[in-house]
């Protein structure tokens, strides 16, 4: 190709590329902003319902501008039961997330790295634990919980939360471990690390985005869980979800309180998300580390 050929091709490519690049950029931002709107609008509406004075929650045309009142939140804060259940949930869910990671992540590692007999069947079996609708298993669980004295205990609820998340953790983490080259562990073992140390010091940090993402999801799954909390507790271990619904009465719905409680329930999730946000982004580039 002669130089002028290049010139013309790159010239046109340049045009192409410039337009395409801007196009892509604008398109990307448009999509992200659009989705942000789609996500934000109901959330905004929820929050605004919680901040509107009584009677304005559903008024149309909407009061876009209104004097926000924290009345509902004050009510919520003064509701000792709500606060207690909130704290209870934070503890139970928090502990369950830690435990489910402690149980699930090592198992996922083994499933990823070792030759397990009937590996596929084991994996499907694990997955089968989330195939039945909770509705269909809640009664058996109720029966066992009664027998084992786990009914209405925090330990019981933590166990339940573990059980709803374990399959997720195992599967997703296995996938992430599969993506981490074994060379890293080889290096660790040569460096004198035991298999466990290799796992803990080298593999785990490399799997951080995966761990964080399953932690987030597990947290949320447990946090919004309703059915097991409903059936398997009565006083001591009641999760906050049940309280949110207590604003849906027999012949009236307290929109403001419902919205406030629902909003309040999102807050710990946001806090959790912000706390782990930076780890979620911490992608590793194995490519610069091993030649392959």
């Amino acid at each position: 190709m002669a130089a002028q050929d290049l010139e013309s091709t790159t010239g046109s490519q340049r045009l192409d590329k410039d337009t395409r690049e801007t196009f892509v950029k604008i398109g990307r931002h448009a999509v992200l902003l659009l989705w942000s709107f789609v996500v934000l609008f109901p959330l905004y509406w929820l929050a605004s319902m919680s901040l509107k004075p009584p009677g304005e929650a559903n008024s149309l045309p909407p009061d876009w501008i209104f004097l926000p009142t924290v009345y509902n939140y004050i009510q919520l804060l003064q509701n000792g039961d709500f606060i207690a259940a909130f704290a209870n949930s934070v503890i139970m869910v928090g502990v369950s997330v830690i435990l489910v990671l402690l149980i699930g992540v090592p198992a996922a590692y083994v499933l990823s790295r070792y030759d397990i007999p009937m590996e596929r069947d084991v994996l499907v079996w694990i997955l089968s634990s989330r195939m039945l609708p909770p509705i269909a298993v809640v009664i058996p669980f109720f029966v066992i919980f009664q027998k084992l004295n786990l009914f209405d205990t925090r330990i019981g609820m933590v166990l339940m939360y573990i059980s709803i998340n374990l399959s997720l953790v195992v599967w997703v983490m296995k996938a992430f471990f599969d993506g981490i080259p074994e060379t890293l562990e080889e290096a660790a073992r040569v460096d004198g690390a035991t298999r466990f140390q290799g796992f803990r010091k080298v593999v785990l940090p490399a799997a951080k985005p995966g761990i964080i993402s399953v932690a987030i999801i597990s947290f949320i799954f447990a946090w919004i869980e309703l059915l097991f909390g409903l059936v398997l507790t009565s006083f001591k271990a009641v999760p906050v979800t049940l309280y949110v619904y207590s604003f849906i009465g027999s012949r009236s719905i307290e929109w403001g309180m419902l919205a406030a409680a629902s909003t309040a329930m999102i807050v710990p999730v946001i806090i959790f998300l912000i706390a782990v946000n930076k780890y979620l982004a911490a992608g590793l580039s194995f490519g610069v580390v091993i030649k392959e």
Partner: protein
Amino acid sequence: TRGGAGGDGGSSNSSGGGSSGDLAIPLSKYQDANIDWKQFEGDKINIGAVQHPWVSAIKPAIPVFEELTGIDVVWNILPEQQFRTKRQTDVSTGAGQFDVFFMDQVVNQFRHEGWLQPLDKYFNDSSLYDEGWYKPDDLFEASKWQCHGGGYSDKWTGMPITIEVQTQFYLQDLYDKHGLEVAETWKQFRENAKTIHENESDIVGTAGRGQKGYGMNIYILNTLLRQKGTKLWTDFPNDSGLDSQGVIEAAEWYTSLLQDYGPEGASTQTWSDVQATMQEGRTGHIVADANMFWGGLTNDESSVADTVQIAKVPKPEGGELNPNAFTWQISTSKNAKNSEQAFLFMMWATSQPTDTWMHLESSGVFSVRQSVWENDEYRSKVGEDYAQVSLESLKEAAPDPFDRKYPEWGQRYSEELQRAIAGQKPAEAAMKQAAKVAEDIYSG
């Protein structure tokens, strides 16, 4: 509207050791009774309750009961749907956690499964019951009837705590504007709805429950069909009567009313949508729904508080007024550990002193006792209109009979009605299908 602290929580409200002077109701009101109140001192009962105003109304009086009997009361309060799940799990596995629980449309289902414990044994126990003091005749017939398995049992299945009855609601300012009269008949009602629907841009003629569910659309339709002179199960369990002319006419009327003058998507509206629509002044009427909406429509949640009016439900020309009514009863199960204590509680809670206090001093608006509705203090407290319309309706009220498979076939029946409201099939076809399904369920 919603009273008291949400949810269950903790144990009783008894602060313990408070002198009777602090109590909401003087103990003397109960001590006249020839009942051994203290026989279960130190026990504890567990109440499974729905998130219902009754709970908030009675809660301040619980210390009275605790003081009176020495029994601790523990609450377990849940939203309706969640409560049903929990109650069913509890009784079906024989766990017997609840000594007292709210009972509704499933009464005969539970009775048939042998989960419910008839109360007659306790009524007959003189240390537990004193008829002269309790005055069972003061209870509305409708609620007593429901407490006997809705006509399917001759034994007490529970004791009534609340009753609500259907009434209609309308907006006075619209009526004034368009020169309308309060409708007494279906025809009038339809015309009123038409006038409003066609002359107002942002306001629909009427709103009514369209959502399926045994407490939803058919709760309204059942009234209308009874007014047409027919009833559910013309011949139980062989002929459901749902394909009779009266039912079909009622269904056609209700369906076309909602389709023509109801909101878009009326077929999916539940009581909360209906209420919200009215609260926002987006509808001229509510055709027939719980009188208990009154509170929600007149409090500060409502933008129509000063113009909304209550009236009895319309009836067909020549038909009878017999609005649907619904009673929450409280029952105890076979496996409950403290049934006697539970009975003491039920009786105390539904007794005249307690009920009167709940309505006069607390937030009750749903008394099962006629005497309360006639009480002037109460009438002036809740408003003459509300009290009078409710009372008259209650006297005429005819609740639904909840046979043991009502939940199952009722669900299918309401599905069919919902389809008709949604315009997916004609009302007649829907009702015929519903009849078939209902009968199949009993024969299959």
